[in-house]
């Protein structure tokens, strides 16, 4: 298979994708990548049903119409509907980051007084991870309105959808947090406590910042997954991108709208992945080079020197 260019570089301390040296390796990997893609394209184009698939899934006219929408014809714009996914994602993400942290800290606590909370936390994580997200969405999305409680039973489907996402994802993310907390060596706790910092101050200034650096990649991984799972909220009737695509195909019997939705989701997730890489690289560079991004006391930041 094709090797991503510069992949071996990743293990080096200061990797630069496509960076230093090895021009021959770069040429080789590019060639092999192009060849593999060409073979895949050929298989797709030469398949017996290729023409039918292309008309049904990749018709440019349908794709454009699905993207912009046409209310008079009875379907929504997939592009506009994506805005709902983005809002649901952002709100859910913030709530998840907070709730998951609370759960993780509670589960990592050691005090005997907090035992009941630890038990609750453990049960919550077990349940929330064990029940399929789609069932949680149905349970909250149809169950809460059915309760006819004042104030909480008359929200829009998107609100219940977000609640379901938060319920389910916080359990996963709390485990990610927990892994991060455990990864910080005990000696760091000892050093912080020995200076007179309280348990919570040690957590806030010493443990958590280090834990979060460690868990950014798995955390972002979960959020990429969350971005896609906002599509499930369409099951409750919210017109998000996937639902809009579905309505389009129901009306026109063409599935190109789904392709549009897929591309839009890709456009959302790829920047997030690149952003993660950027954060990791920046953190590493700063720590290795002693560049000052946080403190402003010296006027000129020292140039990022290359430690070879």
């Amino acid at each position, binding site marked *: 298979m094709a090797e991503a260019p510069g992949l071996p570089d990743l293990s080096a301390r200061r990797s630069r994708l496509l960076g230093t040296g090895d021009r021959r390796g770069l040429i080789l990997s590019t060639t092999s990548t192009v060849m593999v893609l060409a073979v895949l394209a050929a298989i797709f184009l030469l398949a017996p049903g290729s023409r039918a698939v292309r008309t049904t899934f990749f018709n440019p006219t349908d794709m454009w119409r699905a993207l912009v929408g046409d209310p008079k014809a009875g379907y929504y714009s997939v592009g506009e509907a994506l805005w709902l996914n983005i809002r649901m994602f952002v709100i859910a993400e913030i709530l998840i980051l907070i709730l998951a942290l609370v759960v993780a800290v509670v589960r990592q606590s050691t005090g005997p007084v907090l035992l009941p909370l630890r038990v609750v936390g453990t049960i919550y994580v077990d349940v929330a991870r064990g029940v399929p997200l789609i069932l949680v969405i149905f349970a909250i999305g149809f169950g809460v309105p059915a309760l006819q409680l004042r104030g909480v039973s008359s929200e829009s489907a998107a609100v219940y959808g977000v609640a379901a996402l938060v319920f389910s994802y916080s359990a996963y993310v709390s485990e990610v947090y927990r892994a991060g907390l455990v990864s910080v060596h005990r000696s760091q706790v*000892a050093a912080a*406590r020995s*200076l*007179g910092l309280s348990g919570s101050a040690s957590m806030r200034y010493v443990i958590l910042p280090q834990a979060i650096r460690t868990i950014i990649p798995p955390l972002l991984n979960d959020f990429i997954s969350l971005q896609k799972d906002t599509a499930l909220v369409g099951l409750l009737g919210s017109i998000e991108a996937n639902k809009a695509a579905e309505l389009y195909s129901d009306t026109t019997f063409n599935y190109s709208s789904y392709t549009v939705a897929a591309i839009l989701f890709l456009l959302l997730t790829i920047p997030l992945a690149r952003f993660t890489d950027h954060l990791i690289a920046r953190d590493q560079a700063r720590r*290795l080079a*002693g560049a000052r991004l*946080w*403190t402003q*006391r010296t006027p000129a930041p*020292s140039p990022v020197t290359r430690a070879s």
Partner: protein
Amino acid sequence: MDAADSGSVAGDPGFVTSTDGVADAAGAADGAAAAALRIEQLRKSYGAEEVLRGIDLAVASHEVVCLIGASGSGKSTLLRCVNLLERIDSGSIWLDGQLITGPGVDQNLVRRHIGIVFQSFNLFPHMTVERNVTLAPMKVLGLSRAAASARAAELLDRFGLGEKRSDYPDRLSGGQQQRVAIVRALAMRPRLMLLDEVTSALDPELVADVLDVIRELARSGMTMLIATHEMGFARDIASRVCFLSGGQIIEQAPPEQLFSQPSDERTRRFLRRIVDAGRM
């Protein structure tokens, strides 16, 4: 050199909040005002293994006491107990005449007054040198950023680390890291410094720098309890040397006496092994 800087004369009373004044009463009763630190019948076990088996030790103000002994003899555990990082099983510890191991003692308050430096530095890797040093003064003592920075700058300059203040720890040599760790502890102006084999993780050529720092601290009058494998260093810095074995203090004496005429057979055997290993 500024004596106030070293924190050797901190002397502010009442650092132990006791809910009921029991600690004060106990401390005042024995009248040993000169002892900065006093330990009585300290016992500590990890599971079935008893690591400290009845330690009695007093350290006077401005005294430098070195703990020597084989690995596993209990030196590190003793220091960690004094800093309340380990829960003791029985016995008592007094700091400036106040019981710090009793009920109602605010551990965080006690630890402000006891600095500890670890074998493995334990600097905070996500903070610059300056932030490492200013964190506790700001968050624990409530100093302003400016005041904490000034205090840090003074200490860093004094120990030749002024230029490193904006670096992150992993850019520093082991010796520099350990000196930063010492400065970090000093920034709290502790009453007592505990040094736990602070040169054991260092390359040999870096040891001297760190030992010089400790010598300077001793000259400035800092009260210190030092666990060390550096016998030469213990000999010329210590007011008193304690030999630990099997969780007990076997023998304690001024260095010239303990190193030249040890009275206990176990001390003699230990010192002979050190000499044979070329470490003295």
